[in-house]
C-alpha cells in the first residue's frame, strides 16, 4: 500500500511540475500570438534619449507581411532630413539569422548587411534587435513566478531564461521577467537582467489596439536603461491591419524606389 501511495505521489508531483512549466511556456506563446500580425502598414516615431536628456528622433514608415514561413519587413526613414529616404529591408526567418538590406540615397546604393548579434541595439536605441523581432520560443526555459497586480490588472509573472550561455550572451540578458495579463495575454512590462544577473532595463508596453479579430498591437513602448539612464520611446502613429503590397515590394530592388 505504502509503495502505491508513494508512486501516486511521485506521479502527481511530476505531473504538477510538468503542468506548471507547460503553463509558463503556454502563457508566453499565447502572449506572442496575440500580437503576431501577418501583415500591416504603419508609421512610427522612435525617440532616443541619453541620460542628459538629449534627443534623437527618427520617423519611419513600415510595411510587413508574411510570405510562407518568412516575415518580410520594409522600413523607410522620413525624418530627420539627412537620413530621409534611407530604406531597410529585413527577412525574418523562422530558423536562421535574419537577412538585412539597406539603401542609402546619398550614394544611391543598396547594400546587404550581415550582423549576427541579436543582443545589439536597434537603430542606436535602448531596444535590442531581439526586442524587435519574434523570439524563438525554444531558446528559453520558462517559469511562473506567481501573479502580480499591474495597474489593477491581475498578471502572470513569467520568467524566461536563455537555454545556455551562448544564447544569453547573444541576446544580451541572463533572464527577463514579463507581466502578462491573465485574461487578454497582453504583455505590460518586461524587466531585463544583465549577464551579471543585475537589473538592467525595463520596458513598459501600453496602448493595445485591436487591429483584427483577436489581433492586437501595442502603440507605445518605452525602454529605460536603469544602469546608464538612457531611454528610448517607440510610438506607432498610424496603423493599418493588412497590406496590399505584393512580394515584389519586399525586394532589395524595391528599396530604391
Amino acid at each position, binding site marked *: 500500500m505504502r509503495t502505491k501511495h508513494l508512486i501516486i505521489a511521485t506521479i502527481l508531483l511530476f505531473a504538477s511540475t510538468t503542468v506548471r512549466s507547460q503553463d509558463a511556456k503556454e502563457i508566453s506563446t499565447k502572449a506572442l500570438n496575440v500580437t503576431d500580425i501577418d501583415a500591416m502598414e504603419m508609421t512610427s516615431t522612435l525617440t532616443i534619449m*541619453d541620460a*542628459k536628456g*538629449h534627443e*534623437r528622433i527618427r520617423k519611419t514608415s513600415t510595411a510587413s507581411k508574411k510570405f510562407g514561413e518568412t516575415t518580410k519587413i520594409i522600413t523607410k*526613414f522620413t525624418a*530627420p*532630413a*539627412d*537620413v530621409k529616404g*534611407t530604406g*531597410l529591408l529585413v527577412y525574418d526567418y523562422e530558423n536562421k539569422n535574419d537577412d*538585412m538590406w*539597406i539603401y*542609402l*540615397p*546619398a*550614394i544611391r*546604393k543598396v*547594400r*546587404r*548587411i*550581415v*550582423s*549576427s*548579434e541579436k543582443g*545589439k*541595439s*536597434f*537603430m*542606436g536605441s535602448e531596444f535590442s534587435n531581439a526586442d524587435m523581432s519574434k523570439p524563438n520560443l525554444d531558446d528559453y526555459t520558462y517559469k511562473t513566478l506567481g501573479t502580480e497586480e499591474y495597474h489593477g490588472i491581475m498578471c502572470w509573472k513569467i520568467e524566461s531564461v536563455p537555454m545556455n550561455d551562448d544564447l544569453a*550572451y547573444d541576446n544580451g540578458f541572463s533572464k527577463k521577467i514579463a507581466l502578462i495579463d491573465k485574461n487578454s495575454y497582453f504583455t505590460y512590462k518586461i524587466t531585463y537582467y*544583465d*549577464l*551579471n544577473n*543585475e537589473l538592467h532595463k525595463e520596458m513598459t508596453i501600453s496602448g493595445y489596439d485591436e487591429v483584427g479579430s483577436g489581433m492586437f498591437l501595442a502603440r507605445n513602448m518605452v525602454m529605460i536603461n536603469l544602469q546608464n539612464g538612457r531611454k528610448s520611446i517607440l510610438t506607432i502613429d498610424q496603423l493599418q491591419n493588412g497590406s496590399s503590397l505584393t512580394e515584389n515590394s519586399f525586394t532589395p530592388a524595391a528599396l530604391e524606389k
Partner: protein
Amino acid sequence: MKYEHFIIKYRWWFIIVPVIITLLAAIPLTKTKVNPDLEKYLPEDTPAMLAKAKVDSLFGNSDPVILIFETDDVLNKETLTRLKNLSRAFHKAKEFDRVISLYDTKSIKGEYGAMVVDPVVKRIPKTEKQREQLREDIRQNELAYRLVISEDFSKTVIILKVANGITDEQVVQKIENTLHEFPGDETIYKSGTVYLRVQVNSDISRDMLILMPLGMLIMILFLLLSFREWKSVALPFLVVAMSIVISLGFFPLMGWELSIITILAPIMMIAIANNYGVHFIARYQELNAANPEWSMKEITKNVLYHLKKPVIITGLTTIAGILGLVVHILLPAKQLGIAASLGIAFALLLSISFIPAMMATMKKEKPLKLLTQEKAGIIEKGLARLARLSFTRPVMILFIFGSFLLLAGAGVVHLQVDSNSENFLPPKHPFRQATSIVNEDFGGTKYLTVLFEGDMKDPELLKRLNHYETELKKNPSVGSVMSIASVLKIMSRALNDEGDEFYDKIPDTREAVAQYIELYSMSGDPEDFDDLVNFDYTQALMIVQFRADNKNALDNVIDEIDRLTVDDPERSIIGGYCLVDKELSEAVVHGQYNSLLFAILIIALLLILIFRSFVSGLLGSLPLLFTIITLFGTMGWLGIKLDIGTAMLSSIAIGIGIDYTIHFFWRYKYELGSGKSYEEAITATLTTTGRGITINAFSVMLGFVILFVSSFLTIKYFAFLIIFSVLLCLLCALILIPALCLLIKPKFLESNFKK
C-alpha cells in the same frame, strides 16, 4: 645658567613628557594611508587637468588598462577560448565601462555585395584552413591588426576602460581574480597607469619599510664606531626616531595621505634631526676629555650652555628653509614642508631638553682615549690636516671650489625634467617590459586626445580630420590615430566597390555621412562610437596613440598635433594623461625653484638678523648656493633627470648645509673670542665641532648607501644625490668656509664672545 639648572632640576619631566607625546603620536600611525596618485594633488585649474577633466567627462576615462597575452600563436584554440571567457567576464564586471579584445573589435568589410560587421573573432577556428582564413582577415583589418593583435600573431591584448569611481585596488583585484578563474599558459603583461600607480605604491612602501631601518642600523654602527659608547649613540638616535614618529604621525592626524613626495619626511629626519644630538655628544666627549674631574651634571650644564644657541639657530634656519616648501604648487610638497618642520622643531626641543636631561641622569664614562692622547683617530687626524690646509692655501682652495662650481654648474644647462613616471621603475621591471611590448607591437602606451566641437557630420570637418590623421601617421612615434573620420573611411570601403566614386573616402555630403552612421547603428554596436563622438554629434575625439619615453618625444608629438590643428576653428582642446604627467613634473620642478629661492632668502635674512651683519647672510648662504648649483649641474652632466624625488632633494641639502655652516661659525667665533689667532681658532673649531659635523655627515652618507639596492631607479639616484650633497655641504663647512673666513676675516665673527 638659569635654563641649564632648570632642565637638570626637572630632568625627569623633560624625559617623560616627550616620551609620552611620542607614544601618543604613534597611535594614529596605524591609520596611515598611502596614495601614490600624485595627479590628485595637482591644482584642478591647470591646463592639462582641465583638458583631461573635460575629455573624461565627455568620453569617459581615457586611461585604459592593457593586458598583453603572449604565446607562440594566439590564434590557437586554447588561447582564443581563454580570451573569449576573459572578455565575457570583463564585460560582466561593473569595474569596466568598455572591453576591447579580439571578440569586441569590429571587422567591417565588403563581401559579395554585403557590408559585414562582425567581431574580429566570431567563432574559434576548428580547422587549419579556417585559422589561416582568420589570420588573413585580421591582416586586412586596420581596426585590429597591430592594435589588438601583434604583427607576428604572438601577442594580443585586452584593453579595459575603467568605470568612474572604481579604485585602483578594485581594478587590480578584479583582473587578478578573473585571470585566476580562467587560467592558461600564456605569458601575461599588464600595462596602464593603474598598474603603474599600484606598482609604484607597493614597491615604494616595500623599499622604504625594508631599507630605511637597515640604513638606520648602519648609521648606528658608524656612530658607535665614532663615539665608542652606547649611550652616545642612543641619544641622537632616539631624537631621530622620536621626530620621525612626530612628523609621520601628523599625517593621519590631519587626514593627509603619504605620497611619493611626503615619504621623504622620515628621510629628512634621518638626514637632519640627528645633527643636533651628535653635537651634544661630541661636545660632551670633548669636555669629558678636557676635564675628567667634572661630574656628569657639570658637563651637561656646560654642553647645554655652549650649544643651546647654535642648536636653536640651526634648527630655526632649517625650519625656515624647509617651510619654503609651503609656497610649492603641490599639496604634498606643502604637507612635507609642514610635517618636516614640525619634526625638526620637535627634534630641536628634544635636543635642548630631553638630551641634556637624559645625559644628567646617566653614569659618567671614562674619557675617550681618542681625544685625550696622542693616538688620534682617522677623523681627528684628517681634520687637523684640513685645518692646516685652509690657512696655508686659502686662495688655492677658493680657486678649486670656484673652478669646480663653474665646471659642474655649467651642467645645469643640460639638466632635464623627467616627465614620465614610468621611469620610476627599473628597466627590467615587468611593467617596463609591458610598456616596451605595447610600444613595439601595439602602437604605444601614450594617448593624446584632440577634442573637436562643431557639426561632426560636416564633410569638410571630417575631411580635415582625415588629413590630420594621415599626416600624424607619418610621424614615426605615432602608432595609431582614430576618429569618427577613420571609421567613415573604413565604411566607405565596405559599402562601395573598388573604383567607385565613393570608395575609400569621406563622403562629400552631410546626408551621406548621416546615412553611413545610421547604417552603422543598424549593423554594429552604437557603443563602438561612444569613445569617438558624443550623442548628438557636436563633439568628437581624435585619439592619437604613440610611444614616447622622454619629454622630447612627447613634445614632438604635441607640437605636431598643434601645428596641424592650430588653425582649425573646430579644434577645442588637447588632453591626455601624459600631459598631466608632464605638467606634474614641471610643477614639481618649478615649485621647487620657487621654494629654494624663498628658502635661501629667508635663511640669509635670519642670519643677518642673528649675527647683525649683512656679510653673515652672504657667507652663510654661499654653501647652500654652492651645493645646489653643483648638485643640479652634476645631474645635468650625468644625465640624471629632475623628477619628483630628485627635485625635493635640494630642500634636504639646504637643511644640512645651513646646520654645518652655523655650527662652524659659532665655534669659530667662540674660539676667536677666547683670544686665539685665526689659525688656532680654525684648528680648534675643526678638531672639535668639525668632528661632530664629520661624524654626522658620514653617518648620514653611510645610512643612505643602503638605498642603492632599491628597485626604484629614482630612489637610487636619490641616494646618490643625497650622499653627494651631504659631501658637498661637508666640504664647504670644513674647507671652503674656513678658507673664506681667513681671507675675508668677517667682522661678525670677531666681535667679542661674551662669556
